């Protein structure tokens, strides 16, 4: 079902973790849909010096997170904005049709983290980023995603 590249990035994900003093943090998706991506960026002089992620989700979600962080590291913000879900998918040698939404999530997670960076730095917000298109139609803005439905107790 998954390409070898996907399986490689799933089994050996690059850039897993947090960045304590991140310059931008974005989280998209929600637990209801089964996918949450949280992206941490370290940005210096408009260049993405480091990127890390945490992901709750399926194999494709983990692999696209991993690939997306790989693709944006060392890029300028402008360049990072060009990393669409299509680019991530191609870098992974494709995804099964039912998993395409995961790559959309990766694109949106980057966008959300960049938006957070702009906001923190008083930069003009990118009106291209209108919030997540929604893995399952239920998503709203970045803030809304954060921590939703994450407070129920497992027995």
């Amino acid at each position: 079902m998954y390409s070898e590249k996907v399986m490689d990035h799933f089994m050996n994900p690059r850039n897993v973790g947090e960045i304590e003093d991140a310059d931008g943090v974005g989280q998209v998706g929600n637990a209801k849909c089964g996918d949450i991506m949280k992206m941490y960026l370290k940005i210096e002089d408009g260049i993405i010096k480091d990127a890390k992620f945490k992901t709750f989700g399926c194999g494709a979600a983990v692999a696209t997170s991993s690939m997306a962080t790989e693709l944006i590291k060392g890029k300028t913000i402008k360049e990072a904005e060009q990393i669409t879900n299509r680019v991530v998918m191609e870098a992974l040698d494709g995804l099964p049709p039912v998993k395409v939404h995961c790559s959309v999530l990766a694109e949106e997670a980057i966008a959300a983290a960049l938006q957070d960076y702009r906001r923190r730095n008083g930069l003009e917000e990118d009106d291209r980023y209108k919030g997540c298109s929604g893995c399952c139609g239920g998503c709203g803005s970045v803030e809304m995603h954060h921590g939703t439905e994450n407070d129920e107790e497992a027995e």
Partner: protein
Amino acid sequence: MQKQIIYFDHAATTYVKPEVFEAMKPYFLQEYGNPSSIYSIGRSNRKAVEDARISVAKSLGAAEPSEIYFTGSGTEADNWAIKGAAQALRKKGKHIITSSIEHPAVMATCEFLKKEGYDLTIIPVDSEGLVHPDDVDKAIRPDTVIVSIMMANNEIGTIQPIKEIAQVCRKHGVLFHTDAVQAAGNIPIDVKDLGVDLLSVSGHKFYGPKGTGVLYIRKGVRIENFIHGGHQERNRRAGTENVPGIVGLAKALELAVENMDAHTRKLTSLRDRALKGITERIPYVRVNGSLERRLPGNLNVSFRFVEGESVLLMLDMKGIKASSGSACTSGSLDPSHVLLAIGLPHEIAHGSLRLSFGEINTEEEVDYLVDSLVEILDKLRNMSPLYEDFVKGENKNV
């Protein structure tokens, strides 16, 4: 990554036992005649089919072999039972009752009938996945044409009080169907004692062939045909009989009934060993379904903060085959409707794993499974933003 395969997904499908395969073989290559033919090669086939019918009738406790109809799958049997009853009783009414944890073979069939103008009542289950016969009693109306409640659930293994539900239905004079696809060959079935009118079986859940099934239709029960055509199955299910498939299903069910005690003991012990290992060594785990009224080989657990497919894939990399919810519904984004029905929140339902043990499994395999899960959960939780939030929250509370 180890090469050997460890299969813990017997509820999805089983291999065909060598004895079963050997029983089927001659009907592919030598005894290939059409059972409807009058000449001798066809007649030996006819006899094979009728012997299989007698054997299945015995395995299920049917009063007569003529109550057994061979189908092309468990799904076909479910479709036939429900649509056939609905059609035959159209004059009586257009109300159908089922439960919230049915397999798609029943659920989608009921949904289809709903689209056709039938009223559908979906009985809820309790937190263990049990249907309460009282709820069925209350749901039955004068225009109810059929009640369909599964005997044992494919995801959480819960075994329903079928006899009691059948009594309720009989009291009201309403037809009762049970999808026994997971039950057959795994727990004893006696259709006479249960008092059901219709019961579905699938061959590939007890070491028989895929693409085979049975619909038990109690004598005197009239439902419309589902597959129309030739005169096979006493004019009730058309299509040239799948002779090797029928022979294989009957043989597999026979073996399963013969070995039922040992099968139950072995699977229960493996299941309990896995359960103990997992709950003792992994925190934030929930066991889904009833522990008493449960299929011997079924274990269903939810691991908080992680997503089920990731667990499955990592297990697969270690050679371990399991399932997250039902195999049939993989590819869907929604978590299992069964886990939601027993009250699990979405995110916990997403992190569920179904292990279904079988006769080839060993204690060593179970121990390897537990070790693997410990390692995998550690890795995935460290990657999970939900776990991060949870830990930070915990720390804050300290």
